[in-house]
């Protein structure tokens, strides 16, 4: 009886894992073919579509990085009369507010929204909602405080909004502190797989590119119509992705709209960040799963991709359980389909945030003109195993939180130190 249950579980879980592998193989092939047909050094953006834009920058104790971001904001090439920048100093206890005020005094387009411990400090979604009420731009862009955009990024993102069916646009984050250590290098690989291949392929194939909450924007009218961001969600960006699609709009990916980010550089910080992402993603999965399945506004391919995207943070758990089930069956002498066993083990060489396997990472790095970073691909197995624990804990925390009626209402943020300059200063 136990053997039959194990066999059944192993068979179905391996099939699901196989479906993800096929999905990423298709993504990789799609991007390869697209790269071959694209002209090298494509011309810079020449769009004439220039709507009014509000940039929201939520900041909670970001004194080490907020100054350099505001400096970059003053250097943006977008027409200044159509631009407003709102920095939300959300219950900071350091000098974030003072630095922002200094910039605001020097540059008219920068506004500072101060929130004290009574009105603010309730998390990123809450801070964004407060700023959204003050924003007047037709398009609202969001940047985290540790990001460093190129001067022409606004035009590249906004260009996609010329299509009225587009509800949000996502740009591409590039890791700034890549050479720092093995953690930042592995995150670089993950980002390459996630953005250079995954997001781009989803955009080309008309699936669901994900809005990442930073280096991207949305139509203010749409999100205001939703009543702003859902403050009960830990990953309000993923929640917004599905709200936009369920409302009948789509999200586009602007791969040439690059912005540098500071990746976490310790395993402890990595755990905290990924735990929040995993828990938030699972929250969104429980919230939207049924709606995605039954929605009449989504095409069948969007439904499939949406469901695979929603369940991505469950996959490390399923993969590991599948490994245990398959391993037990083999050790107890029960036959296991060799091909399925191979599929399960291949997925150990995947990154968790996007479930991108090693071959996708390699192609992404190569398309980015990288020569050596993909040599770290064999280490992906350790990152995956680490994520098995992260996602399992996130799942149990979510379930326990639901049972006990706990809800999050504070900042679960990553500390930014202003480290790294591999593209900017070197």
């Amino acid at each position, binding site marked *: 009886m136990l053997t039959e249950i194990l066999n059944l579980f192993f068979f179905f879980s391996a099939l699901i894992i196989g479906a993800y592998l096929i999905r990423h193989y298709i993504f990789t092939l799609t991007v390869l073919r697209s790269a071959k047909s694209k002209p090298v050094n494509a011309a810079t953006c020449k769009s004439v579509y220039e709507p009014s834009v509000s940039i929201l920058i939520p900041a909670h104790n970001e004194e080490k990085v907020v100054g350099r971001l505001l400096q970059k904001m003053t250097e943006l090439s977008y027409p200044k009369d159509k631009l407003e920048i709102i920095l939300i100093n959300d219950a900071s206890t350091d000098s974030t507010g003072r630095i922002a005020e200094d910039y605001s005094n020097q540059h008219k387009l920068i506004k500072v929204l101060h929130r004290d411990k009574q009105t603010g400090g309730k998390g990123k979604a809450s801070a964004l909602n407060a700023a959204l009420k003050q924003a007047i731009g037709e398009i609202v862009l969001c940047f985290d405080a540790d990001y460093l955009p190129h001067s022409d990024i606004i035009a590249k993102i906004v260009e996609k909004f010329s299509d009225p069916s587009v509800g949000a646009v996502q740009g591409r984050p590039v890791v700034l502190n890549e050479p720092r250590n093995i953690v930042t290098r592995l995150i670089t690989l993950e980002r390459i797989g996630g953005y250079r291949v995954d997001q781009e392929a989803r955009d080309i194939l008309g699936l669901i590119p994900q809005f990442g909450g930073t280096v991207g924007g949305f139509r203010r009218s749409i999100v205001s119509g939703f009543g702003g961001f859902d403050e009960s969600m830990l990953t309000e960006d993923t929640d917004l992705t599905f709200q936009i699609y369920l409302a009948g709009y789509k999200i586009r990916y602007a791969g040439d709209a690059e912005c540098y980010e500071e990746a976490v550089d310790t395993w402890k910080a990595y755990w905290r960040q990924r735990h929040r992402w995993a828990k938030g993603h699972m929250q969104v999965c429980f919230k939207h799963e049924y709606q995605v399945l039954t929605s009449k506004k989504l095409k069948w391919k969007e439904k499939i991709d949406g469901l695979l995207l929603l369940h991505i943070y469950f996959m490390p758990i399923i993969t590991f359980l599948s490994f245990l089930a398959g391993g037990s069956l083999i050790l107890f002498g029960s036959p296991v389909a060799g091909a399925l066993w191979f599929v399960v083990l291949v997925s150990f060489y995947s990154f968790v945030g996007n479930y991108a396997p090693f071959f996708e990472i390699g*192609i992404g790095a190569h398309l980015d003109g990288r020569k050596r970073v993909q040599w770290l691909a064999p280490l992906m197995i350790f990152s995956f195993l680490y994520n098995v624990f992260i996602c399992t804990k996130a799942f149990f925390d979510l379930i326990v939180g639901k049972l006990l009626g706990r809800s999050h209402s504070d900042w679960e943020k990553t500390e930014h130190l202003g480290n790294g300059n591999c*593209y900017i200063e070197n």
Partner: protein
Amino acid sequence: MREKVNQVKTINRIATVFSVEIIILCLIASLRFVNIQSTITLIIFNLFFASLFFQLNGSSTTKIGMLTAGNIIGVFWNSFFYYLSLSWIEYFGLSFNAVFTLIYPILNLMWIVPFWSLSLSFLPKMQFPKTA
């Protein structure tokens, strides 16, 4: 000049035919001297490698050379662990066979993943390199 170009083309063709022969020999050797799993692994590796790697920029000679190298490494790797497992089965008994089945894909991924990562470095850079 034209004669030289033709000579290079001929050499490339001979190299390609030679490489294909080696790949076929590797597949036969894996089936004859190792086991069916190793042959299937090599076939999957060839299909996967050819479908992705051959779409990248770079000379076809380099690509087929890498594919051939992959097959040679695969045969040696598989035969080494196969004969090692046979000796261990002799020592520990038949129960070790299950352990070998368990770790067999991991052992193969231990050469496939690094080989894939390294082989990409032998091709010329593609477009869109990151610059500030």
